[in-house]
């Protein structure tokens, strides 16, 4: 008996932690999401009335920010994938004895605060940075165009901040590919592009799926990049939730928005994993 119980006893601290810090807050959030203000009470006083209309109101009111969140997150994810794939491929197959060094470089930004690095992008894209004058002199942007406080800046910031979350899983899965299977593909009449399409890419799909999820999910709920690099016109759903909670003290709407975001992400991710068909690969 004692032996059978041991694994459960070992799981207990983990379950306890999840219960206190995940299950209970979620339940609390669910409860809050259907509350309404106490008649004649102070700001921030709510009572449970099971008003599910809260969800519809919250969504209708913030459709635009929801849409923007998913579009920005999608663009940032695709950009991160486009940058990370060649990077991870090069580190896995071409970096030789410098492999670990390059991996350290990929995670090196984590040694500095996330906020600080995002603020730094303000400088990079600002009037005094080198990007704007360069683009102006080449004529890609007009003299009156600025890059700060734009959707462009927000997406760039998100791409940059989530890049390592894309690169590392991609690297892990590309690094596991036996280079001899790529040689075998060439040996069997496939040129470089066909080998990529038929062998490298399918074999790295677990990394692509993991990387895109690790980038897309936090990016869709992100508000720091939009807050620092954006403008009121680039508000994402994260910014709305943040201001409802901390500024307007409208807890029910913030909770309803959080749940809606969670559900939307869950549905998208499920569909995506089904489509990518990775169950067989992992």
């Amino acid at each position, binding site marked *: 008996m004692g032996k059978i119980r041991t694994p459960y006893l070992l799981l207990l601290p983990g379950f306890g932690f999840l219960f206190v810090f995940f299950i209970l807050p979620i339940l609390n959030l669910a409860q809050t999401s259907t509350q309404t203000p106490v008649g004649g009470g102070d700001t921030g006083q709510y009572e449970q009335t099971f008003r599910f209309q809260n969800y519809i109101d919250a969504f209708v009111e913030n459709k635009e920010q929801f849409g923007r969140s998913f579009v920005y997150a999608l663009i940032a994810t695709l950009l991160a994938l486009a940058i990370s794939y060649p990077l991870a491929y090069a580190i896995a197959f071409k970096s030789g004895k410098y492999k670990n060094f390059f991996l350290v470089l990929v995670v090196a930004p984590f040694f500095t605060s996330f906020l600080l690095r995002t603020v730094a992008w303000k400088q990079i894209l600002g009037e005094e940075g080198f990007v704007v004058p360069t683009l102006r002199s080449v004529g890609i942007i007009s003299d009156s165009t600025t890059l700060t406080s734009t959707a462009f800046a927000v997406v760039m910031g998100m791409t940059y901040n989530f890049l390592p979350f894309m690169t590392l899983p991609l690297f892990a899965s590309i690094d596991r590919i036996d280079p001899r299977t790529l040689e075998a593909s*060439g040996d069997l009449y496939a040129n470089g592009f066909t080998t990529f399409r038929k*062998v490298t890419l399918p074999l790295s799909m677990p990394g692509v799926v993991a990387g895109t999820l690790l980038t897309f999910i936090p990016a869709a709920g992100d508000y720091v990049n939009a807050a620092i690099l954006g403008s009121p016109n680039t508000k994402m759903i994260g910014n709305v939730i943040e201001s409802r909670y901390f500024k307007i003290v409208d807890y029910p709407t913030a909770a309803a928005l959080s749940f809606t975001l969670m559900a939307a992400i869950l549905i998208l991710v499920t569909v995506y994993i089904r489509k990518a068909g990775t169950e067989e690969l992992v």
Partner: protein
Amino acid sequence: MSFDASSARGDLILTRITKEYGDFKAVDDLSLTIPKGSFFALLGPSGCGKTTTLRMIAGLEEPTVGSIHLGETDITTTKPYQRPINTVFQNYALFPHLTIFENIAFGLRRRGIKDVDAEVNKVLSLVELPHLAGRKPTQLSGGQQQRIALARAIVNRPALLLLDEPLGALDLKLRRQMQIELKWIQKEVGLTFVHVTHDQEEAMTMADTIAVMNEGKIEQMGSPADLYDDPETAFVANFLGQSNLIKGTISGNDGDSLIADVFGQKISLPKSRSHAVDNSIYVGIRPEKFRISLLNTPVNGNVLTGGRIEDVSYIGVSTQYQVEMPWGQELMVFEQNDDGVAPFNKGDAVNISWAPVFTFALRGDEDITAGSEVNPEDLDEE
């Protein structure tokens, strides 16, 4: 560069190939012709350049100097996918994400062959695994994967099939079985096979012609019997089977034979089997060619007298003896256990005799340990 290379047929001709990695010469001025339709083996220890040579033929490496022709077509710099050459890789390199059927169909689909189903099924029957078409490679045993790797290559009917230590990962019994099967399949499909191995027994079992490689060069090339009976260098004498090499001096001439003096005793050997450049030689005799007899028994042929049995190992089909000669050297003797006679005992004083025709002679300045310190079993990975 042309795609015509893909239809090239004929003998494979390597002309003065050198491959350098920095200061290291992996392959050193190697020239070689592999006739169409033959089963050719490149045999040598780890690091002798045989795998590099194979990779240059496949197009996975480019020679630093030299050219490669397939029939009339120069394929030295063509890409692997443009060559009518397929490889059975060491550890097989099957595509883990594709079924066995799709693994085999891979090359056919790339070349736009029409009847993929029929071709794949035909080759699956040839390797006797038609029931595995729907499985993934990880669901197969090592021996099955090996056959699928072979099927994936031969289904394309290449002008040349390269086998890179294809049996290295199999256990001994399966390896023996696959050797016979590979030989049979080669005859059946009539393709040119180039087989790279460090296992001399494997090379001898399968190949029509063996090229023994050492330090980037070919030591000797010939049929298995030629190489075994008449090795030209100490490396070949030791790497292919075992040899007794005894210091001697050529002292005379007798028609087609040479007379040699071996520590004061006279023996004779065929002139055609002497690879010496002057009078100083090593006399070579394979251990199973020796006969042992007690001192006063009359014997024919070459005789070396004054031996003493130092060690006796009975191993069933034969008994192996170590015989110490008067000059201090221990000779190895394998006697078949086919005459019902009790084996000799340790300490017996004996003569050693053999038919002169089995004698070969090497240059007297050779390093007689060359090729003998290599234990092929330790060298599974190149």
